Each structure stands twice: as structure tokens, then as C-alpha cells.
């Protein structure tokens, strides 16, 4: 390379040192973790390779869905029961979480109450609905009320956290104005803060409702009301075309509710400047996590 204007081999930057070593370490950790896990789950290569085929055999038999049979058995009613559970559960969660959120926000609550309320939110979020339902079923008996309570109490964790973050992002001007007129703490919250956060908090509630519809469908699997029980019993009888119908109806209703709720949420938020609230990317991640039943 004698040409003066072809420095391509010269000027190409070399990767920063340490990257290779870190990459090797990461790869090693993955391999060790993977191998250790495989030994624990006792999976042979044959079984591993056979599984997609086995799964496909089942999925093939879900089609065509036995819609008539499902309608006769009242599957639509069961799906709606799941929706009712989610709706009432969300209302319980909303009613319990909103006052608590005011006690957890840095800008309006004193430290001695803030810390325990925040820890309460964290603890609630840590326990999945299914576990809450497992504890509630002996107390309330089998049925939709156990599922509703489980969803309601579990929702307090996320709804409380989101509302707290919304309160922390408000403009403090109105609050000061209320204080300047001699208003009490409660008046400040009611007239200085609540009107600012209500649109975003309402959209959080709707969002949580979407999540709860999926969660309540799952709760039926352990007997807490809703469509899950139907899926379990049809699978037990290996009545796969009925299973296909149950899945189809569930997915249809879930997607319809998602679309409707998302449209309403967009209308609520449109025209409202973002009042802080959780960082959007992070909230998406968390919301999605909730959506799928996987919780932080």
C-alpha cells in the first residue's frame, strides 16, 4: 500500500481493548448456565428434537375449532366472566391504590409514611396473582370472587407505582396556589394535584384492565372463575377441537378489548401534555411484562 490516499488498512480503528475478553466471558457464562440447566431438566437430545413435532401434532388438532360445542357449553359466557373479573378487579385496585399513591409520592408525602407505602407496593408487585389466588381460595371458596380479589390486590402494586410516578411529575404551581389560600393538605391533593394526574391515571387503569383480562383468564385454571377452567377440562378430555374453539374465542375477545381500550386511552391522553409519569420506554417494557403475565 504505497498510495497516499488509500489509508483504509491504516485508519480502521481497532476495537477497544477488553471487549473480546468480556465477550468470551459472557459466552462462557451462557454455555455453563445452559449446560447446567439442561442437566437439571433431564432432557435428552431425542426428546428435545421430538418436542416441536409433538407440539405440532396437538396444534394441528386444534383445527377446525368446534364452535358449536363451545357455544353450547357457554364458553362465551365464561370468557365474559373473565372480563367481569378483570373489570371489578381493576376497580378494586384503582380504588385502593389512588389514595395510597398520594402517601407514596416524594413531593407530597412525608418520609415516614412514604417509605412503608412504597415497600408495600413493591411487595405486592412481587407476588403473582396466581399465588394471591392460591392464598385466597381457602378463605373465599372457589369461584370468581377469589379471582377478583386476587387481581384487585395484585393491581394495587403496579397501579400504585404508576400513579405515584404521575404525582411526582406534576406542576407544583396549583398546589402552591391552594396552600396560599390556606387550604389543607387534602384540599391541595384534591384541587392542586388530582386534576393534573387524572387523565394519565385513568389511562393507566384502562391499561391495567387489558392486562387483567389475560390474568383472569389464567386464574380460571386453578378454579378462580372464568375461562381457564374450561380450557383445563377440555384438555383433560383431550377434546382438542373444543380447545381450539376456547382459545379462538379467548384470543378474539382479548384482542377486541385491547383495541377498544387502546383507542379510549389515546383519546384520554391526546391533548394532555405528559405529566411526567414513568419513563415511556421503561413503562412499555413493564407494561408488556405485565401484559404477558411476567412480572418484574
Amino acid at each position, binding site marked *: 500500500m504505497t498510495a497516499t490516499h488509500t489509508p483504509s488498512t491504516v485508519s480502521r480503528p481497532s476495537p477497544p481493548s477488553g471487549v473480546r475478553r468480556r465477550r468470551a466471558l459472557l459466552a462462557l457464562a451462557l454455555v455453563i448456565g445452559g449446560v447446567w*440447566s439442561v442437566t437439571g431438566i433431564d432432557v435428552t437430545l431425542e426428546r428435545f428434537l421430538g418436542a416441536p413435532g409433538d407440539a405440532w401434532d396437538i396444534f394441528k388438532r386444534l383445527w377446525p375449532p368446534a364452535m358449536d360445542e363451545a357455544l353450547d357449553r357457554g364458553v362465551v359466557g365464561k370468557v365474559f366472566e373473565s372480563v367481569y373479573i378483570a373489570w371489578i378487579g381493576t376497580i378494586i385496585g384503582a380504588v385502593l391504590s389512588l389514595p395510597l399513591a398520594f402517601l407514596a409520592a416524594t413531593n407530597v408525602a412525608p418520609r415516614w409514611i412514604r417509605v412503608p407505602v412504597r415497600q408495600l407496593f413493591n411487595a405486592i408487585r412481587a407476588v403473582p396473582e*396466581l399465588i394471591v389466588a392460591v*392464598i385466597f381460595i381457602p378463605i373465599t371458596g372457589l369461584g370468581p370472587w377469589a379471582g377478583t380479589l386476587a387481581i384487585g390486590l395484585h393491581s394495587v402494586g403496579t397501579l400504585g407505582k404508576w400513579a405515584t410516578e404521575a404525582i411526582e411529575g406534576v406542576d407544583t404551581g396549583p398546589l402552591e396556589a391552594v396552600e396560599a389560600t390556606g387550604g389543607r393538605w387534602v384540599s391541595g391533593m384534591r384541587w392542586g394535584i388530582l386534576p393534573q394526574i387524572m387523565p394519565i391515571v385513568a389511562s393507566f387503569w384502562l391499561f391495567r384492565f387489558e392486562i387483567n383480562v389475560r390474568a383472569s383468564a389464567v386464574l380460571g385454571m386453578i378454579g378462580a372463575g372464568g375461562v381457564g377452567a374450561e380450557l383445563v377440562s377440555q384438555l383433560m378430555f383431550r377434546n382438542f377441537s373444543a380447545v381450539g374453539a376456547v*382459545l379462538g374465542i379467548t384470543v378474539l375477545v382479548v384482542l377486541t378489548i385491547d383495541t377498544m381500550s387502546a383507542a379510549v386511552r389515546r383519546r384520554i391522553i391526546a391533548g394532555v401534555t405528559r405529566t411526567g409519569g414513568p419513563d415511556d420506554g421503561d413503562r412499555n417494557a413493564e407494561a408488556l411484562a405485565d401484559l*404477558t403475565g411476567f412480572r418484574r
Partner: protein
Amino acid sequence: MSEGGTARPVRPRPRLRTFGITAGLLAFTGFAAREVEFAVSTFWEAWNNPLWEKFWPVPWDWVLDRSNVLDPLVETFQIAILATIVGCGLALPISFAMSRLTAPNRPTYLVSRSVMNVVRAVPDLFWAKLLVTAVGIGAFAGTWALSVFSLAVMVKLFSETVDNADPRPLEAARATGSRHLPAIRTGVLPTVLPEYVAYALYVFELNIRASIVLGLVGAGGIGRVLEAQRQFFRFDRVLGMLIIVFVVVFVIEQVSVAIRKRLV
């Protein structure tokens, strides 16, 4: 109307439609409440329920026995690790197919997107139950179910990252006459890789949590023991197990969060 110079603005009158919607929602709520057998009394009656006594005292020697709680818990984590590796590994190519920026062609984009939307609309434990039926009870089915779901979550998160990636390096790579895959490899992948790793760790945290309940439908791990003890009404053991599980999960999460903070 106006007193003292400045007129107080008139409160807008609620429209008829607002009344209609409110009435409709109230009616729906009332109906739903009846359907779910709503009973406020549960909130205080629950405290007097004699069953609470069955939750106490926690039998610590049973809980701390290796084979009772610790071994299934380890199995739970193994499920979570494998599912994260499989799910996130598959998610990488599919995310690129699902992003408008990097999709090889429009049919691939549309098909992968709609398939993934349907996959996500089926609740996670429904997948677990289906796969338990397909491949048999145990951790193997759980691993599969969790893999499917990590895939769905990861693909959603990561394809959005790819959507928002800077398109210019990709254009530069294409301008050199590069084919599709090498262009993505050099033009997009390096810019999104840190977020990929961060999301993968995040999915791992989710999987750790999710794997705990998998056993409730027969998909292996600690949930299996939980379900068994619940059916024997040994709520004291259930409580002890839950305490152990949440302490361990909390520790793992803190470590993972610390790593994620350093990455991004």
C-alpha cells in the same frame, strides 16, 4: 354572573352523551359485580376466618430441607435460564424480520408481526398447559412454554428498538452494495446490541418470576410442590415456601438490575 370585576368561568355543562356513557359504565359495573359475587364483607370477615391459623407457625425444618424446597427451586431457575437462552436467541432474527427498517420484504414483515400478536394474545399459562399436554408433565414442557413467551416478549421489545435505530449506517452499508444480511450485521446490529443484552436480562428476571407459577399447571419447578401442599391444606408449608422463594427471587433481581444499570 360576574362579581368583583373578574368573571368566574362558567363550568361547562356535561353533555347528554357523557351521561349516557357514565350510566352505561355504571350499569356494566353493577352487572359485573353481581356476576363475580362481589361482597365487601369479605374484607373484614377474612380476618376472622379460622383458616388463617393453618398458615402458622411456619415449619422451618420442613421448608429448609433440601429436597422439599431447594431442589425444585433450583429446577425452576434452570427452566428460566434455558427459556431465556432459547427465547432470546430466536428473538434476534425474528425481531429483524419484524421491524420495518430491517424486514427483508413486506410479506415477511406482515406475517411475523401478526403471528407474534396472536402468540402474545394467548395467556402464558395457557401455553404451558397446551405444551404439558403435548410433551408431557414436567420441567421440559415448562421450558418450552416459557421459551415461547420469552420469545414473544423479547420480539416485541427488541423490534421496537430496531425500529428506532439510526437508519444511516444501514444506508451506508447498502450503498456499498452489501447484501441484506451483512448490511444488517454491520449497519444495525452493533447499535442495538447493548439494548438487546439489557432486554435479555430483563426477560430473564421475568422468567424467574413466571417459572414459579408454571408448576401450578404441571409444568415443573417449585409450583408443583406448592400445588401439592395446597391440595393437602398444608398452608403453613405453602407460606414458608413462598417466603424462601421471594427472598431468593429478590436477591437474583437485585443482581440483574445492577448489571442492567451498568450496561445501558
